């Protein structure tokens, strides 16, 4: 049964990771609402991401409540499940807030009204890759009706009340004190991940902090230029050396 329990715990963690991922993607999509990135497709992406998030939420809740209800678990196990519970409820809080905000912005920015302009935020690209990441698919296929920007809002209202209700139930039924949970990660844990913090992000920093007064931004840009210059100089030296060598050989 300990094997089963371990499996249960792993399953839980996987599902929580998935929920976390979908919540993050949903937030990114909601931020694009109302801007020049907004479109029919974005509304559909929001709808599908949201539904996926809710499915994951229900699954997580069922799993976690069943794990927590088990009285025979050890103290360590219980602490671990409580930690997972806090992760879950924090995700849900974020999701609820984002759903409410997407409702408000969605109501303020209908797509079909010509006098309601979208805000020119500078974002013009599509969010399809973010949605694909959330849905764990390669490419998104769009099949919604043209009135999704208004029709979906009704569903959204229902779903918000469902989520709020679920969270209330969770608080009532599961007696977990969130402040008693100890986090496993230390400060700065995000730096230790195996993330590809490669050249692309350095380039992004240098573009974002473009004012010359800022030391880090300027420094990074200079570092970029310096490295390019160094490489060029290296190649020039090598070429010169090769040419000289050739001449020396010819002369001798």
């Amino acid at each position, binding site marked *: 049964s300990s094997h089963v329990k371990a499996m249960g715990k792993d399953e839980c963690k996987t599902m929580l990771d998935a929920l976390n991922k979908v919540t*993050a993607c949903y937030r990114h999509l909601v*931020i694009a609402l*109302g801007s020049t990135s907004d479109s029919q497709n974005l509304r559909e992406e929001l709808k599908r991401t949201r539904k996926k998030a809710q499915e994951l939420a229900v699954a997580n809740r069922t799993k976690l409540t069943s794990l927590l209800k088990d009285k025979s678990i050890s103290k360590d196990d219980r602490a671990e499940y409580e930690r997972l519970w806090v992760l879950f409820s*924090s995700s849900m809080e974020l999701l609820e807030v984002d759903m409410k905000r997407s409702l408000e912005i969605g109501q303020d920015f209908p797509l079909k009204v010509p006098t309601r302009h979208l*805000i020119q935020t*500078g974002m013009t690209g599509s969010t399809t890759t973010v949605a694909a990441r959330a849905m764990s698919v390669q490419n998104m296929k769009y099949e919604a009706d043209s009135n999704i920007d208004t029709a979906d809002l009704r569903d959204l209202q229902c779903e918000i009340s469902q989520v709020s209700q679920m969270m209330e139930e969770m608080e009532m039924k599961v007696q977990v004190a*969130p402040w008693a949970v100890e*986090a496993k990660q230390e400060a700065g844990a995000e730096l230790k991940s195996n993330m590809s913090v490669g050249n692309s992000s350095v380039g992004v920093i240098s*573009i974002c902090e473009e004012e010359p*007064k800022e030391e880090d931004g300027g420094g990074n840009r200079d570092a970029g230029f310096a490295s390019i210059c160094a490489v060029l100089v290296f190649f020039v030296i090598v070429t010169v050396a090769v040419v000289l060598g050739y001449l020396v050989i010819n002369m001798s």
Partner: protein
Amino acid sequence: MLNSFSVHKSPLWSGSASGLLPLQDDFKAQSHFKLEKLLLEMQDPKTGVKSQPQRLVITTIPHAITGEDIIAWLADRFQVDTQEARNFVSMLVALGYIYPLQDHRRLVIKPDASLYRFQTPYFWPTQQWPVEDTDYAIYLAKRNIRKRGILELHEQEHYNRLHKWMNHKWDFVVMQAKEQYRAAKERKKPDRVVFECQERAYWVVHRPPPGTVSAMDYGLDRLTDPNADEVTGLLCCSFKHYTPLTRSLCFLCSRRLVKYCSTYKSHDPFLSNCLPSNPWLTDDATYWSLNMPSVEIPTKMRVERWTFSFAELLSDPRGRDDFRLFLKKEFSGENLAFWEGCEDLKWGEAATMREKAEHIYKTFLARGAPRWINIDGKTMEVTVKGLKHPHRYVLDPAQTHIYMLMKKDSYGRYQKSPVFKDTVKKAICPEEHRYRHRRPSLSPIILRQMEQEQRAKMAANVDITQVMSKLSKQGKEAPPPFLFLNGILLLSIKPLS
């Protein structure tokens, strides 16, 4: 900005143009709603603000607007001068609706070719969306990833603090930060840059770097929105949750409040003109001299106040004098004297309390006292018993009884009496002050200049006389014109310094 003397009413703040409230007042949903409408107008491709692309090292990002363009557009839209428009746009920037692309830490509007961009609606400041520390922690963790652990000082401090008190959520913060970072990387480079700038601008507004003023500082949170409905309407909407008793009490309270306001409205020097003039505005102290506590002839407004309530009459010394006169004529002055004695006992020194209480007893309450007051047997019993161990409030029951007696009986008769009518007839109604004859106090700058001139004159005089005496002693006929010139120079230079 809002000068009480200014006749010119800026259309930006009045109800005419758009009814926007000044920044100092409220942050209510109403003003934000109107701001949001204005922002939508700015987006119009034909009539909105001109936008241009922002060229960066590798990419080009559209929808950048210059400071001068937006100020010009606003000045044109509301038909105001450039300074007013500039003030308004600086408010937009301070609130976070528009953010600067260069010098992102300073939320000011520069009326030149500096670039700005509109903020996405998700990051607009709206009352209903509180700014969560969890979000800030996630943002700082993301920034930590991007900057490889080198945060700015205030950000590092916030990070440490949040890590400490939000420790139970820290796993979530780290997980979410990583996922959000990965999600953002899915987008194309220009959009990624814009997203980062947006988020950064949002947090500069809501977690300002130290030493900067935040536009988000506002006063207390109100439970109800004063702009929503009228006050009675507001009470009505929460009525369904109240019991009938609470409902009737609320209704009575509000009615009393309304009645009080309508009665005293014309007597409030803030809400209506006070005659002859408000001394704080005109530097004319006639109002105060006319309303001294023991003035011979009171003003009409003052006399009118005496008719509002008995308490009003008693609290005004002149009113009380008048009432005392009336009671003297009626041969029932002992009531008022007793009441005054009780007040003296209540508010007087503790050392003399015992004597006072005894004196009052002997004068008013004892059998066969010279100014015996008529109170009912029960109250008399309680009072006499209490006087055995007198304290400040021992005469309260008796005082209340006498007060109610005077209020119900004497007060009504006083208002119909010849004494009162005479007072009313004699009461003066001062003329309104004509601002033309206003004597403003001397400006301190002018006073100082005059002072300095005086000093210079005295110094110059001393100089010249000293010099003259010295010269006369030495017997030289020094060139006085030269010294005179010097003195004049001194006189002219000193006040200017």
